[in-house]
């Protein structure tokens, strides 16, 4: 049983705080992803959990016990580094068995556990090679193998896939997911790739500038982003976000064009309030080419000229201009469109998001 709890966790370098008192509860056997832009403090947080970085303030508990003063080796964790950090002077077998050797486990058991891990990761052919004789993907697997062999209660990953090419990344991603199902341990996974976070995790923690913006399941952070930042960060292509002013029952965009105020938000805003209006590309579609969700209760239609298109085969991204900004719309079952052609677009306002322009927080309660 190893839930991980962060209480008011702070990290300062000198006088500069880079993690500003974050609170987080990771449940036992949960897969949680920390995402956020570069420099937001993901690695620092993870390294504090690992014990590689001093904690400036606050408490970290693993399995219900504070670990602030425990060295990494006493925390029952494994970590996969972005650089893999394989020991270059040891073979794959020695790399994987190193922690057990240090722990004075009997050689027969070391062999057994290393072979077990090698079988899971399909590394049997490479056991006697040095890390320098492996490809990037193989090194990545050895790094995972080294983590598995310890049978820790908590796995920590710091961008383990960022050095792999796109195809291999998808493959290893699936492998990590399978691994989680198999080893039944708590996993904390740092990435700046929101797709990785969405596909792998039970819950996602979105961080910005040393603060947590939102914690939620992939569906929650996608469907109900708590802040404008989360809305823009999760989803690809990103959500269309535009400034607007509330005017009676309408949202007036820059340049005077306007959209009806989504029904959901009718009594949550006041006239004259400045807001950020957000709508995902999936919820703006050339009429007849959208998702048939069946819950389209608040659809508004506009005729607009197409500026450019990006065909992706099964769908086409259609770019249009509205309120002096470019909007992306996703067209399913695409038909060819010419630039400049005026088409009818459906805006599914039941899926719209409104954020306060001032605080960036959602106006949905």
């Amino acid at each position, binding site marked *: 049983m190893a839930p991980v709890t962060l209480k008011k966790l702070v990290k300062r370098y000198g006088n500069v705080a880079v993690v500003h008192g974050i609170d987080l509860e990771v449940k036992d056997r949960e897969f949680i992803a920390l995402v956020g832009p570069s420099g937001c403090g993901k690695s620092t947080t993870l390294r504090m959990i690992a*014990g*590689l970085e001093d904690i400036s303030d606050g408490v970290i508990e693993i399995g219900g016990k504070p670990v602030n003063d425990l060295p990494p*080796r006493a925390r029952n964790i*494994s970590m996969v580094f972005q650089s893999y*950090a394989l020991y270059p*002077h040891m073979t794959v077998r020695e790399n994987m068995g190193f*922690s057990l050797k240090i*722990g004075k486990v009997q050689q027969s058991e070391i062999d057994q556990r290393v072979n077990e891990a090698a079988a899971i990761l399909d590394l049997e052919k490479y056991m006697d090679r040095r*890390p*320098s004789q492996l490809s990037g993907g193989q090194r990545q697997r050895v790094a995972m193998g080294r983590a598995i062999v310890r049978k820790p209660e908590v796995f920590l990953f710091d961008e383990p896939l960022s050095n792999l090419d796109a195809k291999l990344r998808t493959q290893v991603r699936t492998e990590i997911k399978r691994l989680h199902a198999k080893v039944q341990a708590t996993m904390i996974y740092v990435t700046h790739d929101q797709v990785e976070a969405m596909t792998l995790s039970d819950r996602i923690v979105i961080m910005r500038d040393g603060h947590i913006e939102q914690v939620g399941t992939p569906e929650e952070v996608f469907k109900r982003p708590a802040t404008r930042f989360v809305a823009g960060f999760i989803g690809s292509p990103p959500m269309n976000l535009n400034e607007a002013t509330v005017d009676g029952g309408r949202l007036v965009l820059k340049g005077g064009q306007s959209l009806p105020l989504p029904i959901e938000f009718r009594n949550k805003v006041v006239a004259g309030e400045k807001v950020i209006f957000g709508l995902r590309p999936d919820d703006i579609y050339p009429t007849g080419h959208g998702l048939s969700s069946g819950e389209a209760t608040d659809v508004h239609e506009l005729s607009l000229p197409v500026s450019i298109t990006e065909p992706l085969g099964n769908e086409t991204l259609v770019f249009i201009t509205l309120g002096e900004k470019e909007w992306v719309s996703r067209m399913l079952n695409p038909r060819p469109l010419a630039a400049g052609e005026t088409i009818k677009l459906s805006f599914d306002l039941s899926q719209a998001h409104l954020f306060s322009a001032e605080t960036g927080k959602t106006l949905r309660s």
Partner: protein
Amino acid sequence: MDNNAHRLKRRGLKALHLVGLFLAMLVICLPGLWIVLNSLRPTVEIMAKPPVWIPQDISLDAYRNMFGGAGQGGIPVWEYFRNSLIISVTSTIIALIIGMAGGYAFARYKFKGKSAIFLGFMLTRAVPGIALSLPLFMIFARLNIIDTHFSMILIYVALNVPFTIWLIDGFFRQVPKDLAEAAQIDGCTRWQAFWQVEFPLAGPGIASAGIFAFLTSWNEYALAAQITRSVNSKTLPVGLLDYTSEFTIDWRGMCALAVVMIVPALTLTFIIQKHLVSGLTFGAVKG
């Protein structure tokens, strides 16, 4: 046709290359060979004018006399050798230990005045050893440690430490920090992580620092000539001077002793050089 010309040209270049290398090696090795040669022939032949290039009268007499012990004009080579060995080995080991601790600290930790201290170390190397010999002699005389192993070891440690720190620092820098961290997560203490991971990876660097320190102490003359007086502590380079007397210089004996000095140094370098496999850290991180 074209191909043939090409091949010829390449062969020509290769031959030129070899000839060039041969000439360079000749220049470098000739003095060494000359010493070996001269240790085997009588002074008359060494001093002959015009020089005798092809040795006529080869004998191992010089070596026989040398190891024959003091007494018949022999020189206490064994004692000198022992002194040299004790002083060089001990000072090298101490310099390496300090160098490792210091180099590691410089490579891994931040502390106040780091660059100033580092610069200070380098500056100590700017002072010529000979300039130090008189003050050192006076201090050591007061302390009554003239002509002891201890004094020579002290000098050589001081001489070598800045250099070993500098060299070893560079090698520890090349070992990624992640590795020691990974080792700590794998169950090592900080101390174990050092010995299990960082030390083996910086090993070649530490070994080369060791060679440098050893050779410096082994060959050093200027300071040793001042501080050592007798068979208690005289080292081989100082011992060479024993072959000069008021009217004659025993060139043959001197050369023989020089050979005796060179052989262990060369042997050591060869042995350790094999372990200086560079690029050992390759493959630790993404390549």
